[in-house]
């Protein structure tokens, strides 16, 4: 690979890559996201390789194993370009037919396209499928068009143009200003303005080395959008990170991710190597004089590693226990140096803001929540998968239009956000818009964007018990409120689900919650009671039924009823 030393050379290279790509050449895009791989897409991919060889189409057809297409429910997914014909639940046996009929013969195979379960209407093109129709796939849309292992594919989509714009046309202050004006808010759960955070790190401890970090830990059960985006389009996040580093004045970045996502690790390592070879990472990036390096760190398999100070301890090589000191990591982080941490999706937003400007970005979304949001849609929903919608989209639209509603004719009962540290809202609030502050007001903060849909057969007591049971294995156990509060809450809830709930249990749970939420050491500890509090707010009668009538209204707790 040639090293690129200027914007002109970058554009030259891009031109060369595009010249080799014929937009009319058939391209088979097979989703190699985690869900599709789980349902056998590796076999589908090798079947395509064989079939293409068999029909001697090597030179005439492109085959790419891409990142997540989003519609996990119907995987394995195959999209045929340029027509954008979308086939669902493809098996290796379907492959010869797809190649002969669709790729060569330009015929749609009826049996493999989307059929609306209610109306029977068929949709051959991805853009006509209700799941995709009204999404705004600004971040994840490219994932299905590129090979995540190829930097050239990313460059062909205009990749690294934001970086070159930032480095050559903007000052670090200008970049920072753009992010601030765009009002980009952190996607990891807090919704804190990213620009202010960047500025704090930029101005902290002058003269001291600063760090920028991608939090790709994503440990919540039910959250899989960051993994999908990062695995499918690693350069997007990397580009955002380098731009951020330039604005903040950092020359060293860290990517903190999980030990148990080998595909992500592989794509990431490759992306870093390729970016370095092109001179988009490392010393003197694009000949601009700005230098920046990145190291990948893996977690040790505990949820609390995703907490910012615990994550930084882990990078230092220490056990991932949150730091008890009253310091901000953006000022005193890794090795006590200023360290700016943002999650995958936050970094992914940066290149488009730089390319298209804050005015464009802030025209999307609500007054205080801008841009689009990736949502991991799971639970009792017809179409589970990764959805990207503008902030402000109503939850009703997400559940019923994109999600296709509740399966098996069941009724929607509640929507739970933010996993075991999040909150639940009842069906009656379904018209609430997707918005950091609106949801927060209802006691269900958006979290990282994992939306768990619960039908009428869900027992809220059991649901919260499950969350606490998960957390019991994921808290570090250092501070008393979190460790002991969790232990007792879990006991009380377990008793309730087994018909041993006592008068006063709810009040006791509330008392513990009050202490845990106030006095625990870290933000994980201070959130473990949140699902319970929101469930008590909206479903208190269910808890009471377990205690007073020894009855589980949803018929879930086997030892009752």
């Amino acid at each position, binding site marked *: 690979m040639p090293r690129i030393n200027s914007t002109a050379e970058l554009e030259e290279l891009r031109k060369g890559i595009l010249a080799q790509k014929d937009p009319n050449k058939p391209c088979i895009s097979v989703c190699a996201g985690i869900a599709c791989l789980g349902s056998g897409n590796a076999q589908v991919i090798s079947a395509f390789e064989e079939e293409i060889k068999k029909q001697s189409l090597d030179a005439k057809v492109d085959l790419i194993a891409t990142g997540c297409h989003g519609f996990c429910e119907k995987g394995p997914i195959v999209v045929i370009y340029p027509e954008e014909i979308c086939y669902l639940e493809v098996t290796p046996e379907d492959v010869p037919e797809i190649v002969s009929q669709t790729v060569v013969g330009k015929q749609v195979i009826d049996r493999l396209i989307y059929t609306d379960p209610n109306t029977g209407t068929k949709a051959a093109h991805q853009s006509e499928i209700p799941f995709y129709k009204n999404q705004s796939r600004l971040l994840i849309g490219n994932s299905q068009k590129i090979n995540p292992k190829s930097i050239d594919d990313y460059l062909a989509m205009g990749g690294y143009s934001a970086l070159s714009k930032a480095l050559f046309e903007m000052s670090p202050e200008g970049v920072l200003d753009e992010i601030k004006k765009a009002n980009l808010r952190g996607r990891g759960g807090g919704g804190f303005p990213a620009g202010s955070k960047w500025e704090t790190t930029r101005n902290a401890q002058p003269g001291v080395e600063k760090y920028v970090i991608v939090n790709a830990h994503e440990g919540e059960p039910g959250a899989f959008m960051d993994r999908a985006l990062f695995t499918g389009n690693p350069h997007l996040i990397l580009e955002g990170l380098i731009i951020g580093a330039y604005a903040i004045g950092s020359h060293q970045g860290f990517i903190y991710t999980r030990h148990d996502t080998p595909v992500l690790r592989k794509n990431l390592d490759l992306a870093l190597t390729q970016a370095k070879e092109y001179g988009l990472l490392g010393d003197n990036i694009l000949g601009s004089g700005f230098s920046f390096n990145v190291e990948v760190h893996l977690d040790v398999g*505990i949820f*609390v590693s995703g907490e910012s100070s615990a994550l930084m301890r882990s990078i230092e090589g220490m056990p991932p226990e949150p730091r*008890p*000191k*009253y310091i901000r990591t953006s000022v005193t982080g890794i090795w006590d140096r200023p360290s700016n941490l943002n999650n995958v999706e936050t970094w992914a937003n940066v290149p488009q803001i730089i390319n298209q400007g804050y005015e464009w970005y802030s025209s999307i979304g609500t007054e205080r929540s801008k841009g689009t949001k990736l949502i991991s849609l799971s639970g009792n929903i017809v179409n589970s998968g990764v959805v990207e919608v503008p902030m402000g989209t109503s939850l009703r639209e997400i559940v019923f239009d994109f999600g296709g509603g509740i399966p098996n004719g069941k009724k929607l009962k509640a929507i739970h956000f933010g996993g075991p540290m999040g909150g639940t809202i009842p069906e009656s609030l379904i018209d609430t818009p997707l918005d950091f502050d609106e949801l927060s007001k209802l006691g269900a903060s958006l979290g990282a964007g994992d939306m768990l849909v619960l039908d009428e057969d869900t027992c809220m007591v059991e649901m919260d018990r499950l969350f606490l049971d998960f*957390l*019991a*294995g*994921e*808290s*570090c*156990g*250092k*501070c*008393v*409120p979190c*460790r*002991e*509060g*969790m*232990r*007792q809450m*879990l*006991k009380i809830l377990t008793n309730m689900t087994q018909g041993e709930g006592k008068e006063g249990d709810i009040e*006791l749970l509330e*008392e*513990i919650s*009050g*202490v845990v939420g*106030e*006095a*625990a*050491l870290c933000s994980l500890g201070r959130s473990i009671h949140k699902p319970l509090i929101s469930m008590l707010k909206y479903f208190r009668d269910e808890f009471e039924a377990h205690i007073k009538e020894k009855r589980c209204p949803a018929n879930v707790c086997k030892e009752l009823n």
Partner: protein
Amino acid sequence: MSEIIIQIDGREIAADEGMTVLEAAQKAGISIPTLCYLETLEPYGACRLCSVEVEVRGRTNLVAACLYPVEKDLIVRTRTEKVDRIRKVILELLLAHAPEARGLKMQEYAEEYGADKNRYEKEPSFCIQCGLCVRYCAEIKKKSAICFVNKGPSREIQFIPEIASKECWNCTECFPLCPTEYLQGVFVLTKALAFPSTPMGPSAE
């Protein structure tokens, strides 16, 4: 070192820069309860019993006094309704482990804050995981013969047989630090030495 004037429970107090709220209070003779704090060790912030309310520029927060640094014009309240309620629950949660804690502090605090040792279902363990033994061994003795294993509610103390068999019986300095029961340390140590191959850590679950 420059002097800073702060206010604790309505009293003006002179503190040194770099001090914690707990140190400043102790210097002024104001008592704040602690269980995981020991002057000679690094502050740990785990028991949260020293939680106090601080007010900075009009904003009130609940913080651990053993870690929170003093700053100019800081207002500290050590006995608000909220603080007392939190301390009571923390003590009750801990008394579920060590209802008959011999360490004087636990019983005195329980009385002072009206903590009911029977409030929560009992946990048959004396250990409240203050970490005094673990940190004393690491920070003062520099042996790290005892450590924490596991996580969440399963977290516990464990002697490392290979180190403990060489170091511990000649030392035992950590035993009397225990706020609940001297015998706890003896028991855990004996167990580690008698059954050195007992699996520890998450695999023991």
